[in-house]
């Protein structure tokens, strides 16, 4: 029997959702201030309107649903999944008001793409977009990359029990410190330290590459936010190709890899435990995955003979590859070039890399290296069981911060999430094909959306069918939250309708 949710459930969800919305409205004040400082008064008004709508809704929800109860697991998951949808809609308001998006759906698409750190975009005339709007596009990647709810819970939520449920619901499997609020604050500390360093480095490199000082540091800040959070937005329409700079490409490769590393690993590196890098199952899996898949891509590109020199192969082949593998989506190619200049083998290598992603508890999407590592270990264990005598006890270990004995439930969980991702990639591809796009292009774009990558082979553009835009929005949302909180929300609505 399905139990209908109680009014008390809705109240608690509404209360915490209200807090998240108030937090979001407050974040909108940052680009508003930037707009005023840069004499961009209409864009500042866009953010003023967006912030006020958010604050009104948030305050009313807090007032109407006022409660002192902590969140249950179900409520925590629903708060997370709803928060992302509400953030998408509210975050799209200033974008839509700017007039650079064709429709509110397009603005919602970019808003979700930003929060989910995907990087697919439907913006028009990006090269004339106001600085404050451009800042907002990158800021939502920074906020979304750390986790919208983490941002709020590290500031507004007092009880750590409810905070922990929302932390898990936002696809963070691991705590770094015993207290989840402290964990959130540590994630912010890491991000802000890297933000300052990354912006400085990118700014200085930009100046040496001929950019004006103001522009170099503004671009540096934006590029850092989108690279570290494996997002993929850039301030100009040509993406990273705009800079025509090997130095900027090198720096962004380092930042993208830093963003794809588990925050727990960052913590251990910061604490001086550098040996963990070489031993950790995720870094080992990432190393093997990058090595093997790049061989595929390189062989594929060699078939086309477009990039005959090593420097070209690195800047065009490896750059897109590592950008795809870390889930960033930065590119130095025009979208149609993937189809015209890359062989099918190279594209398949890139699609697999996008589908696998970076580390858990990082800012990347996709299946993730820990799961890949665990599934491979489980496979080896089963092979050993077959090969060794029946009475032998087969034990499989892996190292992830500490030595862990592989248990069946770990393999099962990893496999379920892996299968869910594969299904998500498949569904998006099917919708693409139903709407008339070729198989490989559909698979490429679908994987890019669901794995929160952002590379495009040309399907994503304002003229694409609304059904596909909605499909990609769903994929970005479900892929970023890793399904559980999304399934809980669906279950909640089913229970509300069919429950007794």
């Amino acid at each position: 029997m399905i139990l209908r949710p109680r009014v008390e459930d809705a109240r608690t969800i509404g209360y915490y959702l209200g807090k998240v919305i108030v937090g979001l409205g407050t974040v909108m004040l940052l680009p508003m201030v930037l707009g005023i400082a840069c004499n961009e008064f209409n864009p500042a008004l866009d953010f003023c309107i967006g912030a006020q709508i958010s604050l009104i809704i948030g305050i009313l929800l807090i007032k109407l649903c006022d409660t002192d109860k902590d969140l249950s697991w179900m409520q925590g998951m629903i708060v997370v999944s709803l928060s992302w949808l509400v953030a998408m809609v509210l975050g799209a308001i200033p974008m839509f008001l700017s007039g650079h998006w064709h429709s509110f759906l397009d603005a919602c698409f970019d808003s979700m793409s930003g929060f989910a750190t995907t990087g697919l975009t439907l913006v028009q005339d990006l090269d004339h977009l106001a600085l404050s709007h451009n800042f907002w596009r990158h800021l939502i990647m920074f906020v979304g990359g750390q986790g919208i709810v983490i941002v709020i819970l590290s500031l507004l939520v007092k009880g750590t029990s409810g905070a922990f449920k929302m932390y898990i619901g936002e696809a963070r499997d691991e705590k770094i410190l015993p207290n989840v609020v402290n964990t959130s604050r540590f994630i912010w500390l890491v991000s802000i330290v890297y933000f300052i360093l990354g912006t400085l480095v990118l700014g200085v490199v930009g100046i040496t590459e001929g950019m004006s000082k103001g522009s170099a540091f503004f671009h540096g800040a934006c590029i850092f936010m989108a690279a570290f959070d494996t997002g993929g937005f850039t301030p100009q329409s040509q993406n990273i190709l705009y800079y025509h700079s090997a130095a900027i490409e090198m720096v962004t490769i380092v930042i993208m890899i830093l963003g794809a590393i588990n925050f727990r690993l960052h913590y251990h590196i910061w604490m001086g435990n550098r040996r963990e890098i070489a031993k950790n199952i995720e870094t080992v899996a990432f190393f093997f995955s990058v090595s093997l898949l790049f061989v595929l891509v390189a062989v594929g590109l060699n078939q086309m003979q477009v990039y005959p020199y090593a420097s070209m192969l690195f800047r065009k082949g490896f750059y897109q590859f590592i950008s795809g593998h870390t889930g960033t989506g930065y590119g130095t190619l025009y979208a149609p070039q993937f189809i015209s200049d890359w062989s099918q083998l190279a594209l398949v290598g890139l699609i697999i890399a996008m589908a696998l992603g970076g580390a858990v508890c990082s800012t990347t999407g996709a299946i993730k290296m820990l799961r890949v590592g665990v599934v491979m270990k489980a496979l080896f264990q089963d092979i050993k069981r077959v090969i060794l005598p029946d009475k032998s006890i087969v034990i499989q270990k892996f190292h992830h911060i500490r030595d862990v004995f592989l248990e069946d439930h770990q393999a099962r969980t990893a496999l379920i999430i892996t299968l869910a991702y594969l299904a998500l990639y498949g569904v998006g591809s099917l919708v693409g094909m139903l709407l008339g796009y070729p198989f490989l292009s559909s698979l490429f774009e679908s994987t890019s959306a669901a794995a929160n990558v952002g590379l495009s082979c040309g399907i994503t553009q304002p003229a694409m069918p609304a059904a596909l835009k909605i499909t990609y929005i769903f994929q970005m949302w479900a892929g970023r939250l890793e399904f559980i909180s999304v399934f809980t929300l669906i279950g909640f609505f089913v229970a509300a309708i069919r429950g007794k």
Partner: protein
Amino acid sequence: MNSIKLLLRIVFLAGLFLCAARACYAQPVSSTDLINNATRFDAATISYEGEAIGDIMYRGNFAWVNLHDGTNAIGVWLEGPAAKSIQRTGSYQSKGDWVEVTGTFRRACILHGGDLDIHAETVRVIKPGRSYAEKLNIRKINFALVLLVILGVAWILKQLKFK
């Protein structure tokens, strides 16, 4: 006399041919054409025009400028003095100079790590850019003021404790 007539005819036809060739040559190619048919245009001398956007990035005696023709922007590698003829680039607050370049198109430039680019031989500003004067949107101001009042009411309601 006949030979003079023949010579004049040849000169006339040659002139006509050159004019036609020049007209074809000068016809600018769109960015979409260049990107979608990059193999066909590879290493060809083409004419391309667009709005100069973002920064003009000087690199030694040369510079990069990105020209946006309304659909895509393409990077143009040109000599420093030629880049100096571009006075204004496009941004939120300005429309950049509309620039025509003729030069060699590369699908994957060996000199620039495989970038799809144009190495300009001639650069000409067709139409100078201008700055935009931002007019405040009165409807947005009014809407923001109404929202401010509602926000104030909502905040007061939040402070009140109903029994």
